[in-house]
């Protein structure tokens, strides 16, 4: 079937509109540097680290990034006070400076329990962020964790004290583990919009933390 007039032919209109949309998208994509960087980061993570495997490794207490087994034992063995139970800080089960985006439960526990007390002269501020839904957060979360979701960056519900967080604070974000994207989105926002330097995602999420019998609290 041929069309008598391209302006009146639905198929031609469809192609024309698709071209206009594609052109606009291409122009927008080429000019949106920050968005492109964030998307690239998500994709890099997805390609290099299947979420299911990462979650499993975290829950089991994986080896450190340099291949050495974790030196502090499983977090559960440390109990609620972990490596600092005998008063002496436990040796780091990993090289903090070499950490990538994702960390294991064991590494998160070290950051939570030991890192803030390593150097009294230059204390490291450690911040845990729960990126799950509010209802889930209220039910249980890591003690003293903040509740920040990707939406918080849009609706101005970020913590009031966030402007006072030091740029070099060690921030750990978690959600429900597995395929959960929220923690990665929050991490990306913290790095790209808030300029924090050391933001990590605990890939096993709160389920992995609970499985390792580490402390949680509820909002009630």
């Amino acid at each position, binding site marked *: *079937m*041929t*069309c*008598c*007039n391209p*302006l*009146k*032919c*639905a*198929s*031609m*209109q*469809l*192609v*024309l*509109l*698709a071209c*206009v*949309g*594609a052109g*606009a*998208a*291409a122009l*927008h*994509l080429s000019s*949106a540097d*920050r*968005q*492109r960087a*964030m*998307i*690239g980061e*998500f*994709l890099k993570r*997805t*390609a290099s680290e299947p979420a299911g495997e990462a979650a499993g490794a975290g829950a089991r207490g994986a080896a450190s990034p340099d291949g050495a087994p974790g030196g502090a034992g499983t977090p559960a063995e440390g109990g609620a006070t972990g490596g600092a139970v005998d008063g002496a800080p436990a040796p780091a089960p990993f090289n903090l400076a070499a950490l990538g985006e994702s960390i294991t439960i064991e590494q998160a526990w070290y950051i939570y329990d030991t890192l803030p007390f390593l150097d009294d002269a230059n204390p490291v501020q450690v911040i845990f962020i729960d990126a799950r839904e509010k209802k889930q957060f209220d039910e249980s979360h890591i003690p003293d964790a903040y509740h920040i979701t*990707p*939406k918080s960056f*849009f*609706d*101005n519900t970020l913590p009031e004290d966030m402007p006072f967080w030091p740029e070099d604070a060690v921030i750990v974000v978690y959600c429900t583990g597995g*395929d959960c*994207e929220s923690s*990665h*989105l929050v991490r*990306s926002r913290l790095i790209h919009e808030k300029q924090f330097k050391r933001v990590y995602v605990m890939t096993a999420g709160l389920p992995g933390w609970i499985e390792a019998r580490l402390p949680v609290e509820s909002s009630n």
Partner: protein
Amino acid sequence: MTNACCTSPSLSSGARLGLLAARWVMAGLFLFSGAAKLGWLEALRGVDLLVPIANQGIDPANFAASVNGFRVLHSDLIPFTAFLIPWLEVVCAAALIIGVATRGAARLIAALLVLFCLAMLSVIVRGMDIDCSCFGKFLGGAVGWRSILRNVVLLAIILPVAHYGAGMLALENRFVSRLADSDR
């Protein structure tokens, strides 16, 4: 001799009014959807009353993560797709509102809805639990049969426009009558 692809059947004024309503409802919905995914709703945050609407928005980076969550596209295609889908929605919505290239816009939206349904179906079949981000955060939530049903309803609204055309109050009606005049 008339050509089927260029002509619309003559319709009663009630039917034309119905087409106008369908056109504008879908245009409003898809304009909102595209704007929400492109982060344009942030512009509304300055007005207190509109903050709840602004809160429904995401941006291409968040939308890309949602598209990636479907695991149906190669990662190289994700960035462009995250911009392409909302832009197609905005362009089609604009065409539907003013009534230009209406049938093409309606068909393109119908095609998008069918593609979304297929992607959602594949998610359900694979037993995945992911967020839809279908209209930003508005009508969002987990992908499931409900979201497919919603798309089927939207498809039922847009298909008459794709078949019969703009109805009343469309710029293209003026163009068509002028073209017809010039043909004589």
